[in-house]
């Protein structure tokens, strides 16, 4: 088939068009209480990341911090269907993955500050998060590095036979690494229960997808590997959740891996808090537009329209959350750094 036809077939079309999907979410059939909880979780992620970003600017946070502000709906929509015995792996931009599993606020803030009370005991910073009790097996920043690990965790889950699954979060950029393609093949061939989640924010570092791949939609690779895929608006927590449920249920039921492509956009630069640091195709124009597709506001608008939330309630949620984050931040600041002996302590198991 001629390459132009293929390119056209794999366009994201309106899903990547920020002038679309600005209206309140369609929440018919969803439980308002659950949606309210999701809203709170998304606000927590946003406020915590804003705080981290501010603290980068202030010089208090020194580690590289990749913020997912604008992308909160993805992990929140997916994690609803996960349980603590599942095995979730993230990458460099994984605050939201951690939070969405119920990860402790104090522990992540302490980690970002390099404190021993951090979720990785101060050995990792923002790019290395851990919370295995809640199913977060780890995030590390080599692009695509954890995708094969998640596939192996799925193999383990299949051997366990309890219906647990693994989740591999990665980005549109990671899809350029061979590791991802090998992983798709293994999971598909052997029917290992892993959910591949691509947060397609159209950028890898400073480069728009059009400068890196011949087509936009990463789900084409799932197709080529015969993996059941869904492509959804990643700023719509309801749509993400619905697609995730179908794929997670299938994986738990022994039907093999699934692939979810959530189209979204990050509001900040590749690393750090600045909005304007990225170069690339139309970034600043698009950003203004994408902010109107805010996953938090769209959910709030829908809840208000449905009468499930007062018009001013979102402000209240933000306010409370800010207080909570500030308090946690102060505790994190007060916490001690790891002792020098930690350097050599955890090279090998004790």
């Amino acid at each position: 088939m001629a390459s132009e036809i293929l390119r056209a077939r794999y366009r994201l079309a309106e899903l990547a068009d920020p002038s679309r999907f600005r209206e309140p979410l369609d929440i018919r059939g969803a439980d308002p209480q659950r949606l309210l909880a999701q809203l709170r979780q998304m606000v927590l992620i946003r406020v915590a990341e804003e705080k981290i970003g501010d603290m980068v600017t202030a010089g208090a946070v020194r580690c590289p911090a990749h913020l997912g502000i604008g992308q909160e709906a993805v992990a929140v929509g997916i994690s609803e269907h996960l349980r603590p015995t599942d095995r979730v792996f993230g990458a460099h931009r994984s605050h939201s993955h951690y939070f969405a599993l119920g990860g402790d606020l104090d522990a992540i803030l302490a980690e970002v500050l390099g404190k021993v009370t951090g979720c990785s005991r101060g050995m990792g910073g923002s790019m290395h998060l851990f919370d295995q009790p809640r199913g977060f097996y780890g995030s590390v920043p080599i692009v695509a590095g954890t995708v094969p690990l998640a596939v192996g965790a799925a193999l383990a889950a299949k051997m366990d036979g309890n219906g647990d699954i693994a989740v591999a979060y990665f980005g549109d950029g990671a899809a350029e690494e061979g590791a991802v393609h090998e992983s798709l093949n293994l999971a598909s061939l052997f029917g290992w229960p892993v959910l591949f989640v691509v947060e397609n924010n159209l950028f890898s570092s400073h480069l728009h997808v059009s400068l890196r791949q011949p087509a936009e939609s990463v789900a084409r690779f799932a197709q080529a590997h015969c993996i059941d895929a869904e492509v959804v608006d990643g700023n719509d927590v309801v749509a993400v959740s619905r697609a995730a449920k179908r794929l997670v249920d299938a994986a738990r039921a022994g039907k093999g891996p699934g692939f979810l492509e959530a189209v979204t956009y990050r509001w900040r630069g590749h690393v750090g808090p600045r909005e304007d640091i990225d170069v690339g195709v139309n970034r600043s124009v698009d950003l203004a537009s994408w902010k109107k597709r805010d996953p938090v506001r769209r959910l709030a608008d829908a809840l208000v329209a449905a009468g499930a939330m007062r018009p001013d309630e979102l402000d209240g949620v933000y306010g409370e959350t800010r207080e909570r984050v500030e308090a946690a931040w102060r505790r994190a600041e007060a916490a001690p750094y790891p002792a020098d002996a930690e350097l050599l302590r955890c090279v090998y198991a004790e």
Partner: protein
Amino acid sequence: MSRLAYGDGIRHAFEHLLERYANVFVIGQGLWSPWYVGNSMTDLDKRFGRERVIDTPVSELACTGAAVGASLCGYRPIVVHPRVDFMLYCMDAVVNQAAKWSHMLGGQAHPAVTIRGIVNRGGEQGAQHSQALHAWFAHVPGLRVVLPYSPRDARDLLVASVLCDDPVVYVDDRWLYGLEEDAAPIAERDLREIGPRVVRDGADVTLVGASYSTHLCLQAAEMLARSGVSAEVVDLRVIAPLDPSAVVASVRKTRRLVAVDGSWSTCGLAGEVIASVVERLEPGVLAAAPARVTLPAASAPTSKPLEDAYYPTVDDVAAAALGRVGARALAARGRQR
């Protein structure tokens, strides 16, 4: 005590592990094949099932990463690479992920994975099918690197590697598969307590090797004995973390050191042995400059005559040892230069 060959020893270890430990499985390219891994895994798939002995697509990176991932979930996978050369594709999984996982996440999770790479060379296979990159693995903190020489170690150290909570790179050499010794039944040992070991006592020179190089050293020691030179041989066994104390003690006694390694010299294992020894010895202990016997600084050739020239031989080791001892003889006769 019964006779045990090296290749059989490896297979016995697999059998032992797969029999007793439900959380052990094996994954790698070529595992259902009759030829890839010599006799070291024959019929494991038939005996333990293809769900536990998994032959894979040609995807070294994802397969190794998958083993690492499974090891974080309570399993003890052994991932097998029929040639160390193929591991060039999976270095990220070994070095960026497995080796660092515990450390970078605060010691809260440990990839108890064993990564078996087979040195499979000679036979005119050439540059991309002959490498032995154990020095690379030894360079990286977080990995344990095991190079068994004796059939018993091939067996018991594989068992120990898999039972160890850390990521272990276990490298065996096809050239040893036929080697036999009398061996006691399998003993489950703690890998952390295993290190270099004197396998032959001697007084005049210390020969240090690992894996096939130890074999060369022992044969050279025989040859040297016939020339009246008494060589002590140290078999390193575990090259990372490396505990040089046995080598240091030996050299303190013999005052001469020849380090033998089946890989290249620069930043390799033989140089490490020398450095580890001399940095611990008071000046004046050595009676001769230490020497290395390694591959020449070239890739593996194919043509048989060049292969013969390429690989270190017993003669090379013996000659290096004689060179050290000769120096003493000269010294005894007084400085001549």
